[in-house]
């Protein structure tokens, strides 16, 4: 099964998004949070080593899609992916909505790395108000 990693500047945000997305994935999705900075993850920021560990934990051999929030989350994720052997890609999507879409897609029997990325990126189109 394709794994997911949620990268945020806040450990709490990453864990919270993981919880929401896991609920949508019916409990079957493999989702790892990688949020916060510093040894305990209490600081606001992102950490390439923590992201790399989450990617390895989420990977069962089928690959991993990573959802990211802002700025250094992208850079630290790219760096983490250069250092891991797992097949992993970053989705260019809003972190929460993208994680929900991706979690649903990973539980489909036909899911591929591309289809999960595509589902996550579909979340860019979401409108919250019907103007």
């Amino acid at each position, binding site marked *: 099964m394709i794994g997911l990693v949620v990268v945020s500047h806040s450990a709490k945000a990453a864990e919270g998004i993981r919880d929401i997305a896991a609920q949508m994935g019916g409990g079957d999705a493999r989702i790892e949070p990688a949020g916060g*900075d510093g040894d305990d993850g209490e600081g606001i*920021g*992102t950490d*390439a080593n923590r992201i790399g560990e989450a990617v390895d934990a989420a990977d069962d051999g089928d690959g991993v899609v990573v959802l990211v929030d802002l700025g*250094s989350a992208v850079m630290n994720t790219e760096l983490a992916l250069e250092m891991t052997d797992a097949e992993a890609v970053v989705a260019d999507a809003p972190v929460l909505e993208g994680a929900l879409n991706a979690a649903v897609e990973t539980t489909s029997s036909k899911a591929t790395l591309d289809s999960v990325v595509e589902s996550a990126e579909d979340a860019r189109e979401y409108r919250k108000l019907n103007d």
Partner: protein
Amino acid sequence: MADESVQREALVAAVENVAARIESEKSHLTDLDSAIGDADHGNNMHRGFQAVAEKTDEFEGMDVDEIVKTIGTTIIGNVGGAAGPLYGGSIMTASQELEGGITAETSVAFAEAYLEKVKDRGDAPVGAKTMVDALTPAVHTYKKSVEHDDLPPLTALAKAVDAAERGVNFTVPLRASKGRASFLGWRSVGHQDPGATSTLFILEEILDTAGEYLEGETDVEAVAESAPDEDPEEAQ
């Protein structure tokens, strides 16, 4: 240039000098970052370079490129924010260019690889009010001085530091279009970029360290011995 053990010693000295400089500029960097960023650059850089300084015991017996790679990975593990991947990741990647040791030629290759990685990782062109604005003129000046003007590396490095300083000043009137400061829009104008500033501090310390070692080890004869070895190869 100097043999491997002297290069190793010079790297340790450079790390210690950079760590001490960052320590003394910690609140300065944080002040710059609190104006247009998230006020963590001083602490982040301090934490990272202290960690690197504590690693210097392990450098004994390592090749020069391996030492530089270790400096990069230690920064990645200890510097938060974008500075971790930008400094640490780029040093790590560029360290490959120093296989076989530091020469005029490999130092230019290192500088170019480092700049390319920073620009690629940060996706920042010159003029976005980032470290690229200090780094680009420094690397271009260094390359030109060594390869085109045939200047000794120490002179080339001094020119590069001058260029970096002008680049740092150039960030002040710019509106940020990359990084956290870009969220501020026009309010970022009038502030000096913290990443460009820390880049300059590091280059200044590398220049100081290189000055100590290149002057210390080279009497006139040694210069005469090593210079013809390096230059004809490059000219070919």
